[in-house]
């Protein structure tokens, strides 16, 4: 990943900083999203720091997923969806027409709400990304990437003897960690997670949360969650969305202890939902 290393260095030279003095990775300015006539996301401004976990919380339908999908341009696949405003990653406008979506998505990984491993072997699931991006020149390089990704995702010890088995044969929690390994394998800078634990039981959830905690040292992670406890456990910063607007964003402890906005207060104390 020469390219991403270079951009990373360049980013550090003229790094924008968040209000708290952390270097910002993802910067959104006046982002609006329309689904046809429907104005789903309104004037969102936010700086998301590099290295660390940012949680998006808010009632259902408030636009969390919509905003998340703007960051890797997955909204491009929805014909009726239109995005305005500016989002930069490492100071590079990701909606710049000269930017290659394929490269962007290689740098911004995504994990979905429902585990969606490909109906391929565990090995091929993880090798899929590196193969299409040509990250490995030899078979042994590919094997090294797969092994390292599975190790980082905390799945290696459970699957190392059956890499040839189908990924869909794993348990739900294992599948979700496989999807995380798959995302890590292309060596992204940013990992987007849309309710990654909502289909998992508490034990699998705990494993995924531990994993997120380990990954935060090396990646910029953004996680959408409906669980206040989860947001408190895994995130350093929290952003609260309500009816398509970003109401407030700040350090997680501060948002949960002394929210500045009445709507945030109502939501986290369970008065709206």
């Amino acid at each position, binding site marked *: 990943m020469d390219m991403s290393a270079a951009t990373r260095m360049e980013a550090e030279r003229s790094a924008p900083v968040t209000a708290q003095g952390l270097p910002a990775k993802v910067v959104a300015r006046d982002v609006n999203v329309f689904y046809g006539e429907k104005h789903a996301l309104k004037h969102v401004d936010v700086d998301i720091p590099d290295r660390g976990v940012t949680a998006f919380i808010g009632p259902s339908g408030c636009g969390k997923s919509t905003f998340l999908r703007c960051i890797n341009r997955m909204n491009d696949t929805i014909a009726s969806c239109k995005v305005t405003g500016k989002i930069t990653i490492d100071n590079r406008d990701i909606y710049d027409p000269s930017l290659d979506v*394929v490269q962007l998505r290689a740098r911004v990984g995504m994990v979905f709400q429902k585990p969606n491993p490909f109906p391929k072997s565990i090995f091929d699931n993880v090798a899929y990304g590196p193969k299409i991006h040509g990250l490995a020149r030899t078979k042994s390089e590919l094997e090294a990437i797969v092994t390292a990704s599975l190790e980082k995702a905390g799945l290696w010890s459970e699957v190392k003897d059956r890499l040839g088995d189908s990924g869909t044969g794993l348990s739900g929690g294992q599948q979700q960690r496989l999807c995380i390994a798959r995302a890590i394998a292309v060596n992204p800078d940013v990992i987007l997670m849309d309710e990654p634990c909502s289909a998992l039981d508490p034990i699998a959830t705990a494993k995924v949360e531990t994993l997120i905690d380990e990954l935060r040292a090396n990646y910029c992670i953004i996680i959408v969650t409906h669980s206040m406890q989860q947001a408190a456990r895994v995130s350093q910063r929290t952003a609260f969305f309500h009816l398509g607007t970003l109401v407030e964003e700040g350090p997680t402890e501060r948002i949960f202890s002394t929210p500045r906005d009445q709507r945030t207060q109502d939501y986290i104390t369970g008065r709206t939902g």
Partner: protein
Amino acid sequence: MAYQFFAALVLLVSTAYVVGHRRALSVAAGRLHDLHSLPAYHGLFSAIGVFVPMLAVFVLGAPLVNWMAQSAALGNFDAAIQADPLQRSVILRDAVSLAKGQFGGDASPELQQAAADFKSVLANGNWAVLGLSIAAGLAALAAAFGTIKVPFRARKHVERFTKIVLGACAVVAVLTTIGIVFSVAFETYRFFFDPAIKGKPSVTSFLFGLEWNPQAAMRADQGAISTAYGFVPLLVGSLLITFIAICVAGPLGLFSAIFLSEYASQKVRAIAKPILEILAGIPTVVLGFFAALTVAPLIRGLGEAYGLNVASESALAAGLVMGMMIIPFISSLSDDVITAVPQSMRDGSYALGATKSETIRQVLLPAALPGIVSAFMLAISRAIGETMIVVMAAGLAANLTLNPLEAVTTITVQIKTILVGDQEFDSAKTLAAFALGFVLFFVTLLLNYIALRIVRKYREQYD
């Protein structure tokens, strides 16, 4: 008789439904919740209770009466005549037509007596069957009426009856298949091994013979000349044409399926898909003369322009048109299975930075493979079994060739040629058609088996 019976059946069954329904309501006495089953189930229960015995009496009784009437008619003749199957059947036929007033010639007194006996036994017997079935129906209705109580589990009985009916349908379908296979197998056995059949080939000369010429057996004076039942040219012809057809329809069908499911907008898809499916609805006769009158001359003209020698009926013309015929089988089914791959698979692939074509090649097609292979198998089976197009466009000459520009013939065409017009059922030529059918059946079975193995090996199952 049958009319009266069915009228009585409909009448009694519908009455039984209404009676059962009413009875359930009345035993519930306004407290519908206490009934174990809904009133409609009690109605159905009574209707079934009447239907089954009535039908049983008829199905068993009607043939019995017929047999009794025949025995009565035959009773007027000598035992020697009765013992001779040929005379028996002649007498019976005459007696029946006399009884119906359709007998032409002069009837002997015995025959007249036989006809009268036949008529009276049949009439009395039929009335008895009718009466008996109505009695059985009424008795069943009375029994059902008595059975209906508040806790009676009518629903269970109706469910069980449904299960039996469905099972019986499945059994009929399976038995029919088995029956067809066995009858074809039997005639094939006769073709090869029945000593009464003259001019038949040995199994090996049939399976491996390189010459097919059954026509010579038609006239006795030609019989010795060059009758040959070599199957190989037909098989090669069938496979050659099918191969050409799949070469045409495979890529066209699959690629248009991919276009429709992944690239086309909703609007284009809504228009294009039905149009493609219309192609499947064109009768093959029409496609056949299209092949013979339009495509074949075109190919010949083209071939001549390049200095090639093209027969006016060619495997290529038939194969091309047959390919057109099977495009919709491939495209429509493949489109369905590709569309059925969950959106989450596409999202997962795109989110990793895969392009559309990478996603299609590496995720969608493998996931849809079993369906795509069955689409191809269906298309191939259709192509191998297709007759009309080949008759018109590929000719009848059993050339053993792999050259698509020559005329060839196929298994199906030969079956059709043999069985069209008059033929005796125990000549080698006629029975050859059964042997061909049997082998054709095996070829398709083999292809299906291979396809199944392929699917097993490469299937990627999403849940």
